[in-house]
């Protein structure tokens, strides 16, 4: 049962479009899948390799802008952005890796945070190239129906999941975890830590970029404030993984489900809607205090109160 769980969920999601759901529900499901991809991508770097990044908006935004600029300047379909992303994001990750990956821990977190902000401000100021704050709009949408968008992001998510599982069960994955647990020890055992951290960053960056390119195609409009924000993308990515559970296969997916539903629910509430960032902040603080390894990581701990009660009554 447990072995086939991913397949069952995948099959279940495949039939969802035939259930004649409203386009709002489909929208939410697409967002959940997109955030799972971003969360899983972040998890490679942050959860498994232990390099916490506060700047994944940079990769996301770069992906979105790759697609958008291809459409805007070359007038080809923005879907070409997804393959183009693989090349461009690898290049970006190599540059970022060269600068940031020599740094450790807190330095790295700060450097990536700055990276996200650099991208945002640059995109705002390079008006001739990126349209600045006016943003880029795709005038003719590919599909009005959400079905095909859903299938595309579903396959991207499934591909990401399989890729991560394969990587983490290979030698590469063990290198990543070794680097997270003790970088000096890993180095002394002959692991070229900078090289493997760069690979981890490239994987993470490319996958996040693909999610960004999908976002461009799906939403049809981007501007620097939408794709490069610190809180709404970078920190939300960290939250998705933290809520679900870092360094677990299912953590980012569970986190994405919870975060997207929460965001949609809280925003639509009267009075509290304006304070949704406060609610997110409080959730983040509570998670750090009580469930530091997330819902999936601390699942046993969550079950404990129920189990002990049963034991006492019987």
């Amino acid at each position, binding site marked *: 049962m447990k072995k086939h769980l991913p397949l069952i969920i995948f099959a279940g999601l495949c039939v969802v479009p035939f259930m004649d759901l409203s386009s709002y529900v489909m929208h939410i499901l697409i967002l959940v899948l997109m955030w799972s991809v971003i969360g899983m991508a972040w998890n490679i770097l942050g*959860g498994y390799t232990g390099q916490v990044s*506060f700047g994944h908006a940079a990769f996301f935004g770069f992906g979105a802008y790759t697609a958008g600029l291809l459409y805007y300047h070359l007038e080809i379909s923005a879907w070409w952005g997804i393959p183009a992303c693989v090349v461009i994001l690898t290049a970006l990750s190599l540059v970022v890796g060269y600068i940031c990956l020599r740094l450790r821990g807190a330095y790295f*977190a700060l450097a990536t945070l700055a990276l996200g902000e*650099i991208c945002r*401000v640059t995109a705002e100021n390079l008006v001739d190239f990126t349209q600045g704050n006016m943003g880029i709009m795709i005038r003719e949408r590919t599909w009005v129906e959400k079905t095909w968008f859903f299938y595309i992001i579903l396959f991207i998510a499934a591909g990401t999941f399989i890729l991560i599982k394969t990587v983490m069960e290979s030698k590469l994955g063990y290198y990543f975890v070794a680097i997270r647990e003790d970088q000096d020890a890993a180095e002394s055992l002959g692991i070229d830590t900078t090289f493997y951290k760069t690979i981890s960053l490239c994987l993470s960056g490319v996958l996040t970029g693909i999610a960004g390119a999908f976002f461009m195609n799906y939403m049809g409009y981007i501007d620097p404030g939408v794709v490069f924000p610190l809180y709404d993308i970078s920190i939300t990515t960290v939250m998705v993984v*933290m809520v679900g559970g870092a360094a677990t296969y299912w953590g980012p997916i569970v986190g994405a489900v919870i975060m997207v539903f929460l965001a949609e629910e809280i925003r639509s509430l009267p009075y509290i809607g*304006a304070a*949704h*960032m406060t609610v997110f902040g409080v959730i983040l603080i509570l998670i750090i*205090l009580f469930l530091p390894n997330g819902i999936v990581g601390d699942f046993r701990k969550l079950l404990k109160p129920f189990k002990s009660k049963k034991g006492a009554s019987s």
Partner: protein
Amino acid sequence: MEQYELFLQTLIAGFMLGGLYALIGLGMALIMGVMRVINLAHGDFMMIAMYIAYWLFTLFEIDPYVSVFIAAPALFLFGLVIQKYLLTPVMKVESILPHNLVILTVGLAMVFSNLATVFFTGDYRSTPVSYASNAWYLTDYWPESPIELSLSMPWTLSFVVAVIITIALWIFLTKTDTGKSIRATAQDVDAALLLGVNVNRVRMVTFGIGLVLVAAAGCLFIPIYYLYPALGKQFTNVGFVITVIGGMGSTNGAVIGGLILGIFESMTATYIGMGWAPVGRFAIFVAALIFLPGGIASIIRRRRLGK
């Protein structure tokens, strides 16, 4: 001649901005040094102090420079509470992700800036002090001077107060017992523990002092700047850029880093364009990471060792 005038004026403005930035950077560097935490809510604490100063001015007409003495102790107490009930418990939590404390401060920043938006709306506010547009002109004192320079009165006042606070902090850190134990903890926590320093108390005091510095900076900024709830992020960025330029946790480095950043930012604003000033800030940050990973502190140390 006009070019020199512009250059000198920019330099002066940058120097003064740098003095205020140094105050923000100092608080962050102190916290970084003792607790090994980058306080990503630093700018938002400053925002709180600025709102305190703003409301004191609007409701009771208390001058923002006087509010330093109200906002700073208030934030000191606030800092103690946060340290005691949030940071200390999280320090003990075991988890896979190593940067729990940093992420915690991000959570705090989200809560503060959002609550400020909810309570005070997103309006831009300022304290229109009566002397806001006063300035000293060079030609008033030296009529034949070939160039014209001016010094804005609130800027100069803020700068002077910032310098006084920095000197007071320096005396506190070098001459008093508490200050010495703070520096000892920053150097080596285990050694400080062995020598009988109450590290937990030192951490609390340091966090409080870091917030006092940033609160003072907030009160000094409000007469010359404007206030809105999302302003914290920008100053947090300033703070951590300074901390990195200066060398993590180094107070001397933070002062020099603040001055460098202030001058560099005004130069980019004057010669490239207002919108690019943040890019300049991050460019200098990345340059520091690549070419001088130890920060200015490493240069100072090398000097001292005579290498």
